[in-house]
């Protein structure tokens, strides 16, 4: 049907190659890191490891998996991520669902009350002083409660709910269903795509976030994996690390550092491709409805 000119075909090739280069630029840092984590330290010191491991071994991973410090942070962060995701989804649903009912009295005022928080944030120090006042500093709850609901995500869920035909809930209302039943029996079962998207957003946010732990958490045993990673990369507490590992140089060996980074990245990299078809919808909805 469509006959392409030679110039068009040439551009096709250019675009394919361009995307290939872009993709390589995305994965090469990860491949380099993976190679380093699987290599013998001697080769690393001599700067001989590029994209393939040399002197393949799993010692760095064995060290990480044997160290209770990493395992503890890993288990704690997994636990936090699961709890936060479940709580956040619950709160977000509870906030988004009632707001789709146009004859809910005070709906306009509630919407304004919620929207203001998107534009004016009190700031770092007032938030810190509030945590202090609420006795949340160094309390593990400080990593869960303050970020439990994002208004932005709530708006995404609300626009999804708006997309569910009114007739469904109206016929349920006529049959005498309560609002709670309408939510659990009609809306939640129909909302898997938005639930999956927001679960991913909340989980990634919790897994990757470290600033709240940095500012509010003094107990090292409640450090999240990312904060631990930050401290390791910047050789904070290097004396402790050096004596534990028996190194004369400060910090950990390059392969060990690489293994720790891989260790804290892999869970998310394994999950996101399977949720791709969902989150594409979520992102689009958030932007269109804004």
């Amino acid at each position, binding site marked *: 049907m469509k006959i392409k000119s030679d110039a068009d075909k040439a551009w096709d090739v250019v675009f394919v190659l361009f995307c290939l280069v872009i993709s390589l630029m995305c994965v090469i840092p990860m491949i380099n890191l993976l190679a380093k984590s699987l290599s013998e330290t001697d080769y690393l010191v001599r700067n001989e490891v590029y994209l393939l491991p040399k002197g393949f071994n799993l010692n760095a991973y064995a060290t990480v998996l044997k160290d209770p410090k990493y395992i503890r942070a890993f288990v704690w962060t997994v636990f936090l991520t699961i709890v936060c995701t479940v709580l956040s989804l619950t709160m977000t649903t509870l906030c988004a669902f009632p707001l789709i009912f146009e004859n809910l*009295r005070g709906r306009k005022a509630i919407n304004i009350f919620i929207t203001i928080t998107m534009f004016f944030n*009190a*700031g770092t*120090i007032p938030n810190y002083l509030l945590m202090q006042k609420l006795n949340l500093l160094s309390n593990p709850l400080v990593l869960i409660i303050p970020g439990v609901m994002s208004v932005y995500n709530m708006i995404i869920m609300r626009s999804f709910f708006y997309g569910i035909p009114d007739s469904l809930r109206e016929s349920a209302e006529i049959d005498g269903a309560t609002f709670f039943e309408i939510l659990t029996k009609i809306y939640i079962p129909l909302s898997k795509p938005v639930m999956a998207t927001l679960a991913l957003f909340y989980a990634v946010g919790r897994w990757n976030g470290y600033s709240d732990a940095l500012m509010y958490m003094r107990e090292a045993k409640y450090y999240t994996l990312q904060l631990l990673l930050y401290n390791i990369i910047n050789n904070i507490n290097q004396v402790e690390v050096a004596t534990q590992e028996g190194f004369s140089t400060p910090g950990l060996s390059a392969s060990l550092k690489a293994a720790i980074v891989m260790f804290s990245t892999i869970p998310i990299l394994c999950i996101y491709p399977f949720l791709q078809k969902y989150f594409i919808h979520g992102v689009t909805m958030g932007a269109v409805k804004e």
Partner: protein
Amino acid sequence: MGKKSQTSSGNSKSFGVYMKRYWQLYAMLFLPLLYLTIFKYAPMVYVQIAFKKYSLVKSIWELPLADNHGFEFFIKAFKNNDFKYALRNTLTLNLLDLLFGFPAPIIFALILNELCFKHYKKVVQTIAYMPHFLSWVIIYSLALQLLAPTDGLVNMVISKMGFDPIPFLNDGKHWIGSYIGFGIWQNFGWGSIVYLAAIAGINPELYEAASVDGAGRFRKMWHITLPGIKPTIVVLLIMSLGNILGGGFDRPFAFQNNLVMRVADVIATFVYRVGIKGLQFSLTTAVGLFQSVVGIFFLLMANFISRKLGERGIW
């Protein structure tokens, strides 16, 4: 509110009937609104310490007003060299992000749209979304592994080719480049999702008509695709402009090191360092308030200008 008269005349009997049915919705809203009240509104009470002399022992309502009619700490902030650097760096880094980081997802979306192999396109997309899922701590550690002066991959290649290694992360100018570069790296794929969706919404008949008229690939891109996604571009541009003095904490903090603080310290990290670490609460609350107010001002301005130019605003 205005809706009241719609459902009932507002007398107590019908209110009872209304509540008997609607109380469940209010019960659902209770926790979310309580959360917003405590964690978003209650901190606003503490904003007043920007105008007061902070003391640990007094309640914030009893604090004495700061000198100069309460503006002492704003004046102090603008006399503070570290703050001036932080303000300058925040603006510089955000402007560079806008200049280079903003167009990147648009260009990527346009090119993806030209790919004719569906499966290949999908694989490229999945790979391009990956960096968005990495934390800034991890991205910085990747940057270290790639760019470290002696054992970083890039410098290993540069040395092999016989050039001097480049101090990507330890010298001000190079650091800015690396910071902006990794910002683009993290966001170009994720940012393209919105544009791809907008492109998918363009009427295909427009392309067909253009083909019949003999328009080539780039003419169609310029005259159909770009105008089609212009509203999306404008909305996102307004939001970026509104955030020109804002910006998160995680990215600059993860990338900072002692050698580059002159160009790397931004307002968010300044507030953390001087406020939470240095306990200068009043000064840093003043800085935060300044940042918030200017941010809202920029957002309103961008929205206003966009509407004056005949574009849709964000509200």
